[in-house]
Structures are given as C-alpha cells and as structure tokens.
C-alpha cells in the first residue's frame, strides 16, 4: 500500500531522473575523493560544493513548482521558508562552535558576547542537538506557512494579491532579521561554522557528504512530489489551478487543499535551506531578499512549471549560467537573466521541459513531411 502510494505515479522519465541523480550522488563524491588532484577526471572540491548548492536550489525550485505549477499559487516569498530552514541549521552550526569562538565563550555565540548578552535566549535552547535543529528547519517554515496560509486562503486571497503579500512576508522577515536584538546575528547573520555532526566543514569528505545528502534530499522530495501530484489530491490541485470555483461547487474545500500543499512546499524549502547553509558557510538576512524569491520563480518558469523535472533543470541551468557570467562578464548577468526569462516566456511558455513534447513532435513531423498530427495541437496535459 505504502509502496504503491510512492511508486504508482512514477513514469519512465521520473525513474531516469532518479537514476541520474543517484549516479551524480555517488560519482561526484567519488571523483572528488577517489582521484588524486592532478587526475584529469578529478573533481575539485569547490565544484562539489557549487554543485551541492545547485541541488539545494533545485529543491527550492521543486517546492515552488508544487504550489505554483500544480496549484496556481504564485509565491514570491519562497526564499523566506528557505532562509528560515537555513537559520535553523545555522543556529545548530553556531552552537557546535562552542568555546572555539573568538571570545571563547562556551555557550554564547560570538555576536551575543559582543552584544553583551548574559545568557542564551530561550529560542536558542535545544539547537545544540542536530535532530532538534533539523526538525526545526522543517517545523518553523511549515508553521509559518500554515498560519500564513490559514488566513490567506480562508479569506480567499488569491492571484496577484497573494503574490504581493508573500513578497511582503519575506520583506518583513528581512527587516526583522536585520535587527540585532532579534538574536540571529543581525546583518552579519551566522557564520564561522566549524563542524557538522563532528565533521570538519572545511574537509573534502564533509563537503562530498553534504553533496550526497543534498542529492538524497532532492531525490526523496522528488518522489514525494510525484506521489502527491499523481494522487487524487494532485488532480484536485490541478483542478483548483484550472477552475477554482468549479472545484468548490463540486464540494471540495479548496482552502484545505491549498493549505496542505503550501505547508508541504514550505517544509521542502526549509530543508533546502538547511542543506544550503553548511555548504556556503553563512546565513544572513540577505537570503530573505525579495529578489531571491523572484529568481526562484524564474528557475521554475524556465525549466517548466507543472513538470517536476523542469524546475530542477531550470535551477541548475540558470545557476550554472550565473556562476559563469558572474566570473566572466559580471555586469552582464542581470541582462542575460532578464533576456532569458523574456525569451522563455515568449517562445517556450511551458518552459524547457514543458515544451519538449511539442518540439519533439514538430521535429519528427517535419522530418517525415507528414501533415502535423492533430494531437500535437491539443493542449498538453500538465504532468
């Protein structure tokens, strides 16, 4: 029964994707750790960490696609959930520093000593335990999403109005986390991490392990998304996206469905943030910046919303391009991103993966010189 739940929606494409992801999860660490630095196939550690970061972005994109691509909720604040998950992990990593901080306080992180705080705030308690921090990386974004969604969806706030208040939410959090007296390190955020679970964060093996963990998390989230979207619930979500009032008059309480998927999505984004922070070594309020959420929307749009593989590819491609541009032509990056977004919106409104079936059909019908198949004109089912 449980197995059926997780596998009945898996298509051949999904299995291929999982196989590739698993191969990367094994190969990348192996090429980094197993081969000497001079070997032509050796993968440098910075590349492992960079790829690991892309995987966490891909997980954020997947989370966003679940609400936007399948339920039509365009969130312009998903980076808030990502950052909250990141802060939860950052708090754990801060507590792991222990007495090795600049001020050598056994309990208080440096910034608290600097602010002349005498004791740990209550909300920092328990974060020295990894399971607590990991749970909080899921629970805190989930809880915020639940409360936010409870009010927004019950009040039937939708469309562009919902997008605007999600943007306001992440901006409000940005301002709040900038404040020193919030107890999250103010504008410097949390950094100077040393260890995770006792492993040195600077070591190649730890970084390879974090990459593998990110690949595993992405794979599990992908399977969960396939299960959700291929279930009856997933069909109701698409129904809400396509004709919300029709769904209501069929007797579905639309707000409950939105709340469910919104909360699940926020927790996935939180997990992505928790894996992101140990790999980049810092979390600061800049992660709440509205532009971050909007960038995630672009990844999903470019990859193909309403497809699960598309956003993952979109996040990878765009961030790869970003890394390349910001090194080679830094001043052109934003223009390139804007141009890419406009080009995809105009020419591939379903994104790269969403447009593949049509492109493929066009290519094959052109080759055979046969009249175009009538089926290719019908709107492709969102899958």
């Amino acid at each position, binding site marked *: 029964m449980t197995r059926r739940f997780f596998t009945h929606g898996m298509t051949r494409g999904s299995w291929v994707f999982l196989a590739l992801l698993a191969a990367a999860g094994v190969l990348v660490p192996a090429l980094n750790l197993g081969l000497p630095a001079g070997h032509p196939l050796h993968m440098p550690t910075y590349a492992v960490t960079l790829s690991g970061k892309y995987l966490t972005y891909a997980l954020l994109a997947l989370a966003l696609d679940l609400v936007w691509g399948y339920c039509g909720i365009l969130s312009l604040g998903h980076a808030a959930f990502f950052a909250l998950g990141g802060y939860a992990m950052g708090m754990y990593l801060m507590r792991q520093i222990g007495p090795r901080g600049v001020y050598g306080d056994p309990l208080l992180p440096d910034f608290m000593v600097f602010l002349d705080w005498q004791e740990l705030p209550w909300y920092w308690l328990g974060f020295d335990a990894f399971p607590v921090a990991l749970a909080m990386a899921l629970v805190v974004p989930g809880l915020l999403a639940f409360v936010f969604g409870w009010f927004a969806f019950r009040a039937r706030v939708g469309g562009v109005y919902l997008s605007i208040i999600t943007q306001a939410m992440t901006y409000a959090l940005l301002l709040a986390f900038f404040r020193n007296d919030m107890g999250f390190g103010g504008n410097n955020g949390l950094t100077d991490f040393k260890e995770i679970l006792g492993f040195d964060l600077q070591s190649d093996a730890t970084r390879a392990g974090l990459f593998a963990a990110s690949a595993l998390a992405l794979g599990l989230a992908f399977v969960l998304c396939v299960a959700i979207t291929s279930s009856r619930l997933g069909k109701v979500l698409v129904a809400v996206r396509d*004709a919300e009032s029709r769904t209501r008059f069929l007797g579905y*309480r639309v707000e409950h469905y939105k709340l469910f998927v919104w909360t699940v999505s926020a927790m996935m984004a939180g997990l992505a943030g928790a894996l992101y922070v140990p790999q980049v070594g810092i979390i600061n309020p800049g992660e709440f910046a509205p532009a971050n959420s909007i960038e995630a929307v672009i990844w999903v749009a470019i990859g193909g919303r309403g497809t699960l593989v598309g956003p993952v590819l979109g996040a990878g491609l765009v961030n790869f391009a970003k890394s390349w541009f910001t090194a080679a032509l830094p001043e052109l990056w934003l223009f390139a991103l804007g141009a890419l977004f406009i080009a995809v919106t105009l020419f591939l409104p379903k994104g790269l993966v969403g447009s593949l079936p049509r492109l493929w059909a066009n290519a094959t019908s052109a080759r055979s010189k046969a009249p175009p198949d009538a089926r290719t004109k019908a*709107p492709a089912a969102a899958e």
Partner: protein
Amino acid sequence: MPHHAPPTMPGQPDPHRHDTLLYLDGVSVAFDGFQALNNLSMVVARTEMRAVIGPNGAGKTTMMDVITGKTRPDSGTLRFGETIDLTRHDEADIAGFGIGRKFQKPTVFESHTVEDNLALALKGRRGPFAALFHVTGDDERQRIDDLLSLIRLAHLRAAPAGGLSHGQKQWLEIGMLLAQDPQLLLIDEPAAGMTDAETAATAELLRDIARTHSVVVVEHDMAFVRALDVKVTVLHEGSVLAEGSLDHVSANRKVIDVYLGR
C-alpha cells in the same frame, strides 16, 4: 398545537409539504445599491424540472449564487429539504448536501482527461488526506463508464477536456454534476452554443435526468424551453413576474412587455 403548522395563505409557498426540495421565500440581495434579487420566492418540488427565464439582469445567476452559497442573501429564507438552512453554509457544504451547479460558460478541468473530470466529481470523501490516499475502486470505474455513455463521451475518455467542442464540454459538465449524485441540479444556459441537434439531445437528456432529480434550468432559448415542456418561472428585476406553463406565461401582458417583446 396550531403553532406547529402555521396557516398557509393560498398561493404562498408551503415549506412543510413533504415533496418540497428547494424553498426560497422573500430572498433579497443588493450589490452596491443594485437590487439583484428583490423579495424572490420560489418552490421547487422533488423530481420537478423548472425552467427559469427572464431578461439580462433579472437575477437568474444571482439566484443560483444564493442557492449554492456563493452569495449570502441580505434577507429571506432559503431552505433545502426540510431542515437545511442554506444561508448558513458555504459552497463546499452545499455541494455536499446534494446541489450541483453548471455554469453558464462551460467550466471543466481543461488539462484533465474527460475520465478524470468525472472521477473528481464522483460522490465521495472530499478531504485532502482522503484524496491523497485515494485508490480508484471498481464501483467508481463502473459509475464513470455509465456516465461516459450517458453523456456520449465514451470514445473521448482519455482525451484532455480542453480539446472538447463547446457542446461536449456542456455535456461533460452535466456529467460531472450527475457524478456528484445530487438531489437538485442548477443548470445555467445548457443549450448556449449548441447545434440544433445537440440542443434537442440536451433537452432529452435533461428530461431523462428530471425523472430522478430536481432540475432548475436557466435558459434564453425559447425553443429549448418549449422542448423541455415544464413549468416556467419568469424573473424580472429580481422577483417573480409570472409562473406557469410556457403558453400561460407567454400570453401574460407583463411578460411580453419586459421580455418577449413584440
């Protein structure tokens, strides 16, 4: 105990009759000063089919909005069956009580297949967790098969609903209503955009449905209303102008003035 059964004035709707399914009394709704429904009273019996006609702005769609919980009336009584006060419930509840609604513009789930459209409409538990773990059973498949042949879309079962013709979408939406297994169907302009043959077939389908369900049809097409051959309610400015057979209301001076014209 006289207060148990209040005396009923002749001609006034009687909510205590056992064959009354839908009871509206003195229902009024205003939007920004516009009186969309003005002291509207109407009774629909079990397994009755009723046609509602009237000029644009007469309140036909608002009446459906009020019955299905989309709009809350400013005043008046709205009862379904013997006990349910519809003014206290939202769309999802009211759908669950057994009131199905077809929109004026055919509204189906365009990216789902015809079969999935019906599957989503099938009567059953509507909670997100029930839906998450739902497994389609044989009885559901059987019911979908029956509906598909009733609405003549069996050959298009796996086609995306977005690719259907206008008339087919109208039929699919009626099929979705039936899948809900409602007691009352509210149907807004089912014949709009249909060919003559489709219109005739739709009238036949609705008469068939009305054998076991109550049906309220809003329609502009007089030929279609005539084909239905049922009691007609004429709305004007949010209240009932006339009621009776089509011939009876067509002869009514006021109806001719405000609606039929000529």
